[in-house]
Each structure stands twice: as structure tokens, then as C-alpha cells.
């Protein structure tokens, strides 16, 4: 019985390059918010599940995390694990032998407590996913072993004994004196000039009880013992010599105890946790997410789908984003989307791409409800500014980028094409566009093609025409419908002039004086 990866990765992620479509679909912007700029977490988002099973494996785990309230427990686990690693690092790096043994106590304590806590949290939740259940089983076998219990107990005892010691330092007339006492023999030392407050902070609070600045421990800058602390430790070791012997023994018996499986778990959980945290935050500000249904039939549709990247930007500016409903009919493979400029065409195309991406990753999507089947890949082609470096014309540039996309595309990929061939003559562009569409349709790909050429709508029975809309005032409403419309311009306001003659001035003054 084994447990390897919560992500169902065949091997740990490393050094993958960012998929080409991240930039085109603004997924990079979304991931920036999801991962808060953490490159290590980001790497998991750049890895594409190899198959439908992997996608499903993750989806079920993510559902468990969401519905069984596991977020807190798992986050705690990851945090503690990070702290544990820090202790291990200090234990290995320190030059002081006496310190090694004490780091070791705390590392064992944290490690064992962390696993015990995770085990009991997972046991309480009635887990549904295969992945989580496998983890629970593996944890159970770890924490029930005698060796595990023994080192846990020893570390626990040693640390609590040290904790009970109280160190009092007095610095006066250039000398520092140290006084060590137990919680037991804590005596109230009566001094003549004892201040009226118990701690200096009590006095300071008089000035500003809301001051949030804490005293900065000057010894905490380095993890090794400072000269000052060494002197303090000397006094302590005189007091409890037997404790130090036991600590040494524990180090000799048990200093390598980490199971790498748990280390990998701590890393990989970040994938789910970062997205969960992001999703929760977005829901708090009113954005909607749902778990996509993934059917075996070739269905793809959604209600209330929106561009998550745009929604993030708009929210910062206090604007809302328009959502759309859509469906591919059984015979539909491609949408050809036309309509006025700035009408939300590109946004709609991006939101489709995002929908496919996040559902492939086994995560939730930005829509009220969605139904997305498995795609092997996502391919995008967005127009770019003419490249000065290559010196090629824009059309050439486009074709050069399009060629590998067409040659290497796998069957059943999802294609997003935005404004191809804008610099070519319409006649040529229509012919080229039709060919591109026919190529992908033949391969059984789904996709969307944004263009100003409405002629492309009538290419093929597998193509459905969509268009961006204007409202009754001729203003874009960013709604995408299954039909074509023409574009209309907006009117401009006129400018008024002022007058100073008696009649008009008297008139103006009535308004001016009433205003006051």
C-alpha cells in the first residue's frame, strides 16, 4: 500500500515552461493572483494533466477540500511543515553541538504533532475522493507505529521541561546577571525600588495602548547562539545538567526520521489550497464559481460565463463584468464571432479558453454552471504588433505562428483564434480563414474564431455564427448572441456659449442666485 502524489503526478514537477496560451488568454494574470507570485506553486499550474483520469482524480480531491471543510486543516499542515523544514535546516547548519540536539527535539515534536493532527482531521471528515482516502490510510500506518509514538513522547517531555524554565536578566552598571528559576520555585523577589508596573509595556501603554510595534528580540537575527546567549546557557546548564544528557541521547538515537512522501504532500497541496483561497476571496466580493460537469459526450456549454482576468481588473476599478450564456449544438464544432469593436468579442473568446483550462486542471470555473468535456490541448492564436526584430510583415508573422499550430495539433484540442489576417485583403482573408477552420474541424477540434469577416459564419455546417451586441442607444452591452448585427456610432454633445446682455444675463442670474 502506498501513497505518492496528491496531484497524481508521475514525477515531481520541475522546470516546465509556461504553456503558450497563458498570455493570450490572460491566464497568467489570473495565476498571478492565485499564486500571489509564488513561482513554485505556479509550476503546478503549468503542468497539464496527461489524461482524463488525472483530471477527474484532482476534481474529486478538490471537491473533498471544498465540501468537507479541509482547507484549514491542510493549510495548517503545510504551514507546520514549512516550519519543520526550517528547524531541520537550522539543526543541520548550526555549528554548535549543544544546539543541534535541542533543534532536534523541536523538529521531532513539530513533525509528529503535525502528522497526528492531520490524521485526526482527515479521519473525522468523511472523505469521498480516492486520493484523500489513500492519504488517510498511509497516514494511519505511520502514526500507529511504535517508533513514531516513542519519539513523539520523548520530544514532548524534553521540550515542556525546558519551557518551564524562567530566565531573568538584569543589566546594571555594565554587568549582566542571570537568574534561572522553575515555575515551581518562582519566588516573588522583593526589591526596594520596584516600579509600580509589572512590565515596562504596562507603563508604555499609558502613551499609546494601540501601539502595534513589538519589542524586537536582538538575539533572533541569527539562529546560532550569540555570545550573550551562550553565557545565559552556561547558567542554565549548571542548573539542569541531566536534561542536556537526555537531549544528546535522543539526537544520537533519532535524527533522520522524515518520510519524503509527506514533504511532497506539503508542496503539492499548495496547488489546491491556493486556488481554494483565491476562489473564496473572489466569492466574498460577489464572483461566482462552479464545479464543471464533465461528461463523456462531446458537450460544451455554460451559463453566466465571464472572463475572470477582466473581472479582477474591473473589480479593482469598481466596475462589474458582463457574463454570457452559450452552448455548442451537437453538430457545432466552431464559433465564428463577429461584431463591433470594443464589443467584448476577445473577452468572450478568452473566457471560453479559461473555462476549458480550469476544468482540465480539475478546478472550479468562473461561471454559474458549466459542462465541459475533456480536451487534449489548448491552442491559441492572438494577433500581435508587427515585430520589428524579425522584420517580417504582420501577415507573415501570423502565418509563421499558425503553421506549427496546424501541423502539430492533436485531435480533440480546443482552439482559440483572435483576428487572423487583418492585414490581408478581404478576399484573401476569407479564403485563408475558411481553410484554417476546415483544418481544425477535420481534426475534430472545438474552438472559437473571432473575426471581422462575417462571411466566415457560413463556411461549414459545423460552424455557428455569434455576434457582439449594441443596446438601443448604440452602446456596447458586451452581450454575445447567436446572430449578426451592424455597428452604429454614438452622437456628440454640443457646447453652450455665455451671454452678458441684460435680458440673457438676468435670465442667467436667476439660475445662479437660486443655486446659492
Amino acid at each position: 500500500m502506498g501513497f505518492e502524489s496528491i496531484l497524481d503526478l508521475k514525477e515531481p514537477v520541475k522546470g516546465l515552461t509556461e504553456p503558450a496560451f497563458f498570455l493570450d488568454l490572460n491566464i497568467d494574470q489570473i495565476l498571478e493572483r492565485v499564486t500571489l507570485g509564488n513561482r513554485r506553486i505556479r509550476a503546478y499550474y503549468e503542468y497539464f494533466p496527461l489524461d482524463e483520469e488525472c483530471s477527474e482524480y484532482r476534481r474529486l480531491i478538490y471537491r473533498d477540500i471544498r465540501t468537507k471543510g479541509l482547507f484549514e486543516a491542510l493549510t495548517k499542515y503545510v504551514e507546520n511543515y514549512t516550519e519543520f523544514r526550517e528547524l531541520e535546516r537550522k539543526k543541520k547548519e548550526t555549528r554548535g553541538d549543544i544546539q543541534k540536539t535541542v533543534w532536534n527535539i523541536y523538529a521531532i515534536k513539530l513533525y509528529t504533532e503535525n502528522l497526528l493532527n492531520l490524521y485526526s482531521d482527515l479521519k473525522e471528515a468523511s472523505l469521498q475522493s480516492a486520493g484523500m482516502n489513500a492519504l488517510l490510510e498511509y497516514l494511519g500506518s505511520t502514526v500507529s507505529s511504535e517508533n513514531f509514538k516513542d519519539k513523539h513522547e520523548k520530544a514532548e517531555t524534553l521540550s515542556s521541561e525546558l519551557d518551564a524554565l524562567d530566565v531573568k536578566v538584569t543589566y546594571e552598571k555594565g554587568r549582566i546577571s542571570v537568574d534561572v528559576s522553575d515555575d515551581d520555585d518562582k519566588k516573588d523577589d522583593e526589591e526596594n525600588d520596584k516600579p509600580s508596573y509589572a512590565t515596562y509595556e504596562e507603563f508604555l501603554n499609558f502613551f499609546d495602548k494601540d501601539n502595534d510595534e513589538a519589542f524586537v528580540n536582538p538575539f533572533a537575527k541569527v539562529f546560532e547562539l550569540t555570545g550573550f546567549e551562550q553565557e545565559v546557557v552556561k547558567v542554565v546548564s549548571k542548573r539542569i545538567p541531566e536534561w542536556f544528557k537526555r537531549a544528546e541521547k535522543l539526537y544520537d538515537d533519532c535524527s533522520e526520521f522524515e518520510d519524503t512522501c509527506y514533504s511532497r504532500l506539503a508542496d503539492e497541496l499548495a496547488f489546491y489550497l491556493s486556488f481554494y483561497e483565491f476562489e473564496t476571496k473572489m466569492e466574498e466580493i460577489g464572483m461566482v464559481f462552479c464545479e464543471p460537469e464533465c461528461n463523456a459526450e462531446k458537450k460544451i456549454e455554460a451559463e453566466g460565463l465571464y472572463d475572470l482576468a477582466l473581472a479582477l481588473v474591473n473589480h479593482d476599478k469598481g466596475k462589474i463584468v458582463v457574463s454570457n450564456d452559450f452552448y455548442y449544438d451537437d453538430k457545432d464544432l466552431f464559433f465564428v464571432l463577429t461584431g463591433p469593436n470594443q464589443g467584448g468579442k476577445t473577452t468572450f473568446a478568452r473566457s471560453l479558453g479559461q473555462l476549458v483550462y480550469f476544468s482540465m486542471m480539475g478546478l472550479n470555473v468562473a461561471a454559474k454552471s458549466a459542462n465541459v468535456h475533456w480536451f487534449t490541448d489548448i491552442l491559441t492564436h492572438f494577433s500581435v504588433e508587427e515585430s520589428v526584430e524579425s522584420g517580417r510583415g504582420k501577415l507573415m508573422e501570423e502565418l509563421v505562428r499558425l503553421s506549427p499550430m496546424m501541423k502539430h495539433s492533436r485531435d480533440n484540442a480546443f482552439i482559440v483564434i483572435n483576428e487572423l489576417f487583418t492585414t490581408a485583403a478581404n478576399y484573401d482573408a476569407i479564403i485563408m480563414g475558411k481553410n484554417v477552420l476546415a483544418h481544425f474541424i477535420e481534426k475534430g477540434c472545438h474552438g472559437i474564431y473571432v473575426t471581422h469577416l462575417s462571411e466566415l459564419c457560413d463556411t461549414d455546417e459545423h460552424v455557428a455564427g455569434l455576434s457582439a451586441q449594441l443596446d438601443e442607444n448604440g452602446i456596447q452591452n458586451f452581450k454575445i448572441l447567436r446572430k449578426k448585427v451592424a455597428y452604429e456610432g454614438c452622437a456628440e454633445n454640443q457646447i453652450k456659449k455665455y451671454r452678458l446682455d441684460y435680458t440673457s444675463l438676468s435670465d442667467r442670474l436667476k439660475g445662479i442666485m437660486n443655486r446659492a
Partner: protein
Amino acid sequence: MNVYLLYKDREWAGIKKYYDAKSIVQDLGLKTLYTNAGKDVVFENGSVKNIKDQDAFIYDTMSKVMVAPLVTKDEIVFRQEIIKDCLANEDFIKQLYAESGRIMSEWDKLGRKSGYTGRQDLAAWAEKQIHLTELFAGGLKEIKALLKKYHTFFESEGLKALAERMCIEFDDEYEKNIEKLISDVSFYTKGNEDKDGSVYTHMPKITFRGKLRAGLKLEDIVLEDVDSESIKYRNPKSTIAKIVEFKNSLAPNSFSSKLTPAIEKQVEALEQNIVNYAMSFTRSFIEKFSGFFEQLMLQTAFYRGAVNLRHHMKRSGIEYCFPTVCDNKNLSFIELKEFVMCMEQRVNAVGNTCSILNKQLVIITGANQGGKSTFLRSVGIAQVMMQAGLPVAAEDFSSGIFPSLFTHFTRREDSAMNSGRLDEELGRMNSIIENLDDRSLVLLNESFATTTEVDGSIIAYDIIKALNEAGVKILTVTHLLSFAKKMYSESEERTKKGEDSGITFFCAERKSDGQRTFKMIQSVPELTSFGLDLYKQVIGTPKLYDGSED
């Protein structure tokens, strides 16, 4: 903590200025007033001993406060009362202003303008914070003592309230504690001190508790006490110092703070962190009172300036009074002087006495060099001073409150006739109109002089008539005689019908022998500007002049 000396319930910030304050300052010559407010006149035995150099800060303050009008009678009285207290207790306001000035300049030396940053440099921050706290605490103590000393002499609400607020917000407990804090950390800033012939040095006396945690690191440090003690300094190389050091080293479980260079550094860091921690609690104190000192300096500068202005009046023998607020339709005064001119020419100019009741439009015509503009300016200056709460150069002055005060003076350099200038003038007029309200006073001096008299009269008639009917109060000096005449005949017609036109006419007074008194009197507008007088004087009686009235 609030100063609240300029207003009963707010500090000097974001106060609305006159719409076109720049024009008002230029047209009424207010800069002279600011300048003199900044220069104190020192008297000795009733005569002028000397005049002090200009205080730039007072000038600056007057230039801000005077163009931000008070809008209610209560606000005006509030300031008037404080000025009365200041005039009765000149030493008080002088000391208060001097102390605020001292604090501000010391604060400047500590880098006031460089802002409140630079916390990365712990040592520099701590030192600055300690000095600042000491400066503020010392200053507050002084100011509190000063207010307490004069408290019983105060009649004004503003000063009484300030004294009371000060005793609450910087009470004796606060004073005691902040002094203790400064003394606790004095080991950090104070060097050696000579006392009774020996040298004393300030040494820290610190106790704290902590726990040994993972890796045996000292953590969870809780400071129990921080203190400084003054200890007799001994040369470390001296025998006695060595004996003491040896004796100390025998104490169990203790070590010298200079045991190794590393420990010495760690102890220094400990001291540093303690001081920074302790002083971080004074941030709110500094924040609370930094605004206070800035406000106090500005607000006392205003009253200091008011006292100086009174000295300038005394110097020229001008009577002063605190104006009373009356209905906006009325304007009356006794022996009103053009204060700016008095100060510029160091004279006690001719005063005017008028009672203009129930009039919304005052049209002033008459001889050149007859005192028309002076008259208009004297009213404008007094109005601005009254609306700043200041006393005015008159035996009595009573007017309404006009927060929307506008001046529209044709300046000498503008007088050349050219259409571009007229455009500009109309543009200026238009922007005034756009900003009128029901508490507007417009002072027009030779407006629309940039065109011919015929055109100018038509424009003036249209605009002034419309403004008058809309309820805007206007005082206008004009040479546009056909305009004045037309207004006069319309006014007469209404008077015949038994209506009050609300319009009155003023002329420069002229004795029957042609001599000018520079006083303005209510009279029928005259037809000539008495250029003929001059003609007669210089050349002789003009032959082609029939002397008829129309």
C-alpha cells in the same frame, strides 16, 4: 489636540478663500497690510522707538487668513474677543507666539520637513524621536504654564477654552510620565555630565525575563523595567576602577557587558532595540501634537499680526473700532480711513462718514483726484478686515457679511483702449457673475474703461442693472457719466412714484470755490469730471462751453 483660536470648532485647513483673492489683494493693496502686520512698532513713553524687521511668517499667515472670510457674526465676534484679550495682554500673545516659533525652528533643525520616515536607520530614528519628544514635552509644559498664568485675565471664549483643553489633553500625569520616559532612555542620548566637580555618566539599568526555546535561543522576552542611572565616571585604567571590576566579576552567574567584542555589540543592539521599542510608543504623541504646534504657530501669528496692526494705527494716530455686523442692505461708518494708504504714506488721511441704509447700489462719480477710489478702497479694506475678525480704521463701522466679495478694478496698465482688453475685462466680469450668490458684494472701479464712453456706458448699464435687480450689492466708481445719468433718472422716476429704488449716488465734495476736501458726499451725479476746473486754472475759461446741464 486642537488650537481652535481662529474658529471655535475647527483648525486652519481647507478654508474657503474669496473666489478671486488675488484680485482683491492687488486692488485693495493688501500686501502693504500684510507687510505691516509683520513689523512690530515698539513704543517708548508714547512715541515710536523703533520698528522691528518684518516677520515673514506673520506676513505669510496674514496673506492666507485675511482672504478666507468668516461667514457668520458669531465667527467674527469669536475672533474679535480674542483680539481684545491679546490687546489687553500683549505680553501673553508675544510669548505664546515666540514659544511656538521656538518649537517650530528647533523642530526644523531636527528635520521636520524631511518627513517622518527613515525608520530603517534605527539609531537615527531613535535619536530624532527622543529629541522630538523632549522638545514637544518641554514646549507643551511652557505653553501650559503660560496659559495658566494668564487664564484669569481672559475674557474670550477661544483663549479660555484653549487653556482648559491644554490642562486636560496634556495633564499633569501625562507631563510626569513623559518626563519619566525621557529620563528612562536618557542613557541613550545623554553623554557625560559634570556635577559637583565629578563627571557622571548615564548608564542603563534594565531587567527583562525570557524563555529558552528551540535551539536554546532566548525568546519571549518581556521587559520588566528600563531606567537610567547617573554613575560617577571612573577611568577604566584607574586602580579603583580595576578593583571595582574585579569585585563585580566575583558575583555568581554574571558577566561583563564588555566580556567579548561580540557580547558588547549584542548588548548595544539590546539597548538600541529597547530604546526604539519604548520610543515607538511616543509616535502617537508626536502625531497628536505636531499638527497642534503647526496650527498654534499659524493661529498665534494671526493674532500677533493683529496686535502689530493696532500698533501701526496708534503710530499714525488712527482711531480703531471692532465692527458690528448689520443687515446686508446697510452700510455705515464714522471717520473711516483708507488704512493701507495711511500706512504707506504714514499719514492720518481724511476720513469719511456715511450712513447708507437700504441701498443695494452705490454709484460714485466726480472729479479726478477727488478721493473716489480711496473711498471705495477704504470700504473694501474695512470689509475684508471685518470679515477676518480684525479691528478697522474707523471710529465706527457697521456692515453686512459678504463671503462672496469681488473687486473689479480697471488698472492703469489696462486703460489703453483695445478690444483685446475689453474681451479680457468681460471675461473677468463673466467669471465673477458665475460665482455670485445671495451674499455677494461687488466693488467696481472704473470698469469698462477700456472702450469708448458710449460703449462702456451701454455695457455698464446692462450688467449693473441686471446685477442690481438680482440682489447683488454693488459699489461702483465710474467716470461713465451717461451711464450714471441714466441710472439717476430711472431712480428719480421711481422715487416720484413713491418707490425706494435702493440706489444712491455719491460725489467727491467740492467747496464752492472749487477746493477739494477729498470727502465723499451723497449728491446728484455731476456731468463733468471737473477737468474744466483744471483747464480754467491753467489756460483760462473755455470759450466753447455753455455750462448747460444736458
